């Protein structure tokens, strides 16, 4: 395949966490957890800003991933891409007002034959996200399947 040289490709981007975006995200998921949507409730716990849900990581990692997807070699694959596996490990909590810096890197790229004999391409992307205090907030592994033509 013409995408053998994508391993090691690395992109980064910043994302500023806003309360409005957290609320929109929670609303789409029908999530009424007050840690996300109730500013006064969170203030009463520790005086800080509302928290982001764990899978909000998909939002703050998106700009770095987008830069990767826009890469000429990667963009050819996106139409056949499905999400196979996803893994997160969380550090410091992410809260509204935080500035998150994410690095996304392609770490695996190989072919795999499935039970019906079709060859799929597997790509693994690792992201590392830190906050404005340079504390690790999240590492993630995206396992993507590029379905065989």
């Amino acid at each position, binding site marked *: 395949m013409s995408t053998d040289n994508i391993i090691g490709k690395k992109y980064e981007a910043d994302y500023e966490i806003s309360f409005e975006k957290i609320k929109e995200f929670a609303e789409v998921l029908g999530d009424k957890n007050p*840690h996300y949507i109730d500013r006064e409730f969170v203030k009463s716990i520790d005086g800080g800003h509302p928290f982001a*849900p*764990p*899978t909000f990581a*998909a939002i703050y990692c998106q700009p770095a991933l987008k830069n990767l997807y826009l890469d000429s070699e990667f963009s050819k694959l996106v139409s056949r*891409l499905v999400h196979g596996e996803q893994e997160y490990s969380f550090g410091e909590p992410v809260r509204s007002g935080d500035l998150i810096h994410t690095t996304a890197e392609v770490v695996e790229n190989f072919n795999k034959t499935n039970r019906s004999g079709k060859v799929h391409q597997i790509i693994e992307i690792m992201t590392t996200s830190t906050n404005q205090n340079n504390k690790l907030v999240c590492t993630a592994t995206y396992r993507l399947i590029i379905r065989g033509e």
Partner: protein
Amino acid sequence: MKVKDKSKVKIGKYMPYYYAGVSLDYNLIHIDREFAQANGLPDIILQGMCTMGLTAKHIIENDHPSKIKTFKVRFLNPVLPADELNFKSHQNDNEINVEVSNQNGNKVLRGQVTVR
């Protein structure tokens, strides 16, 4: 953290569009039926990250999100608009196994969560 055993979510007809809007995941398999079908799918499919987000909601409910230490999932089958998802979890101390199936009993997601 004590997780409940079961919950249910009905996926709205427009859910892939709403999730596309909030996540900027506009991959055409989520929003264009013709494109999805031309690529061998039965219909537009829900973003895997949306199903994972709903699974996180099932686990955390109104608890503190920082209690989640790790969360990993495998997407087993596509989730379609109007599917009804059944979430089942089993907790063993700080480890939770979770499984999500649709109205036909097909498993769509399997995952593990560790809590602090």
